[in-house]
């Protein structure tokens, strides 16, 4: 996909554990289109957080190991980028909001210092090397640069996300930024207002422990946005918040997507939250992407049995008859995943073909939209599933 911010191709991530390899993510492909919100749902332990942390290479490696695949970001495969180069890509290139808003701010620094640090990082990068070519590929576009290679990243010729050219340059920016401390402060205030914080001048001087959970998460969002990342990975950003705050934060994020041009990978186990925010939805089960498509299509006519059950297991206010459905069986142990489709032990429409290796990958579905894909051999039967 040409305008994908990040394009994950056949990514596999294993954890080395005492029992062997725990296959947390297997053969996942995913594109996040520019300006879109892509939601990832799945139950606990399905690998969605691992996937999210693997993109900016924040997983502890080892025990985590990227077994194969590519993470293409601005023309560079992040899997091949050395880890010590990654701090230059994180932040302004790929940023992340975590699920613990209560502990994600450093307790020793005031709000101002933390937001200012983020703004400062962005300023250094902006004034350094130009951000990777955003030129659209086309027949007459002579301004397009050649695709950078991992060796360019090694040699420092190119940094996805853009970084300061040299340490001398960086020092210069830092000096200038000290001189314009007032300007920095104004920008910090702007971002706090952007995330709808009342009386930001007071909030600036407070320590994180003096703020409520919703406030802290909004400050985290302000920090992430102030770096203007190309991709923002939100890993259950609202799970730790209560429902009213959750709604506020979600509304805010939706508004901000339009104000700051960024793409979001939204990871959640909460279908309601995903329905509220996402444009596309990916469903993960046992380390695999089992269904992907525009959110309305996936919600209205799921084409994978797991998605169907998952949607049915979610409480809605219209469901008044009988107890909530639960999917029979258990999530497989990913140290020894079942052969074939990983859902087949629990699947009502499983046939002998489903038990055979290799397990299905996302395929277009007959009778569904062109962008709707499912990893089920019998996807067309799913709508008839009772």
């Amino acid at each position, binding site marked *: 996909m040409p305008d994908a911010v990040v394009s994950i191709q056949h990514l596999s991530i294993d954890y080395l554990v005492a029992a062997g390899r725990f296959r947390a993510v297997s053969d996942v492909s995913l594109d996040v289109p520019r300006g879109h919100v892509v939601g990832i749902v799945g139950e606990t332990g399905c690998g969605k957080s691992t996937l999210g942390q693997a993109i900016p290479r924040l997983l502890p490696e*080892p025990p985590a190991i990227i077994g194969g695949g590519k993470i293409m970001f601005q023309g560079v495969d992040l899997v091949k980028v050395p880890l010590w180069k990654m701090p230059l890509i994180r932040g302004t290139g790929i940023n992340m909001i975590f699920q613990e808003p*209560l502990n994600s701010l*450093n307790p020793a620094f005031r709000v101002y210092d933390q937001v200012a640090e983020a703004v400062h*990082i962005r300023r250094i990068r902006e004034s350094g090397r130009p951000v990777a070519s955003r030129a659209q590929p086309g027949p007459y576009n002579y301004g397009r640069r050649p695709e950078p290679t991992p060796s360019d990243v090694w040699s420092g010729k190119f940094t996805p996300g853009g970084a300061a050219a040299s340490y001398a340059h960086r020092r210069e920016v830092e000096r200038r930024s000290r001189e314009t401390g007032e300007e920095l402060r104004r920008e910090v205030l702007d971002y706090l207002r*952007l995330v709808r914080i009342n009386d930001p*001048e*007071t909030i600036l001087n407070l*320590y994180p422990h003096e703020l*409520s959970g919703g406030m802290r998460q909004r400050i985290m969002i302000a920090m992430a946005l102030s770096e*203007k990342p190309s991709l923002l990975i939100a890993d259950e950003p609202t799970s730790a918040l209560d429902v009213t705050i959750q709604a506020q934060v979600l509304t805010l994020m939706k508004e901000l997507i339009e104000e700051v041009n960024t793409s979001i990978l939204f990871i959640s186990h909460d279908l309601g939250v995903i329905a509220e925010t996402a444009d596309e939805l990916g469903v993960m089960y046992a380390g695999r992407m089992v269904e992907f498509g525009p959110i309305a299509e996936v919600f209205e006519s799921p084409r994978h049995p797991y998605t169907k059950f998952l949607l049915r297991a979610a409480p809605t206010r219209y469901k008044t008859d009988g107890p909530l459905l639960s999917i029979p069986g258990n999530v497989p142990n990913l140290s020894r995943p079942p052969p074939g489709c990983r859902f087949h032990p629990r699947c009502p429409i499983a046939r002998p073909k489903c038990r055979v290796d290799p397990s299905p990958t996302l395929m277009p579905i007959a009778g569904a939209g062109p962008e709707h894909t499912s990893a089920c051999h019998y996807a067309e039967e799913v709508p008839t599933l009772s």
Partner: protein
Amino acid sequence: MAGAPPSPTLPARPTGFRASSRRFGSGMLGFWRVLRANPLTLVGFLIVVVIGVVAVIVLVAPHLLTPYGSDQLTTDYNQGPSWAHPSGTDGVGIDIYSETLYALPLDLALAFAIAGAAMIAGGGLGLVAGYWDKPGTIGGGLSVFVMRVTDIFLAFPSLILALAIAVSLGRGVWQLIVAVLLTWWPYYVRLVRGETLAVKHLPYVMAAKAAGVTEGRIVLRHILRNVLEPVVVYFTLDVGTVLVTLSTIGFVGLGLPYPSQAEWGSMMSYYQNAGLITALPWTVLGPGLAIFVTVLAFSLLGDGLRDVLDPRSRRVLAGSSADSTSAATPPPTKEEEEAEKAEVQETDQPVDSRALGPVGG
């Protein structure tokens, strides 16, 4: 700057906020409030301040405080405490009070220098060993090496090791510093490494990484600042402990040679060896009392310093209402409880085992 944030909806409200003095100003304010709330800390702090001022005066203008010069022999021999000689005189007519004061700057400087050098060297090693400890990397190898060397040093009782080194090096200021310093740094490695290991897995370090903060800055800013608090507390208590150890070395007779160089431990050793402890007890009492008061002051201050350095307890203790009008104070989070636990463990650490020396003779 394309896509800059939208123009502010609220007009900027002028406040007394100044970016430069922001942290310091408020920090000092909190400091005073905490001191007011803890009388014992206040006492410790005041004594430390007085000791510091006295040390400076003795260095700059000794005649303001000491009636007799260093090594000045008076004609009063074997005098008990009186207005002329607050701590009496010895057999050759040396005024013990003056002599004790003359020893103060040297003793303080030695204690601070040794504890400070141990904190910087050991703390730096601990920080590096704690943060870059992934097995199989250069940092991991270095970490293992540092920790094993630390273990070897900690396997010896520190006082015995210091005495042994002092014996082999001979008497003198530098020899004394080296002897104590060599036994002192491993405690800081342990302390800082443990704290670093605890802090580096906290979510905010991960969040800082995600924000693109470089590794060096994470260590030197985000982790160091959170490790600093127990270390500074430990340092303050440690100044007293070092002083006791120095005095012990002096008392055993391995410290500075007393009549030519005044140091509290050596003074006590000298008079005790001369058999004056029963005949002229004030000769030992003067320097002994000085050690006692100084160590006590640093202990009291160190205990209270923890509250000053922790922004959470600072605000609570200080009862500050000016800054936190609109903010809700949440119940203690898991992290806070962990921090408290860590502190409890930290205070259980080696301070006691090392302070076994003959405090105050």
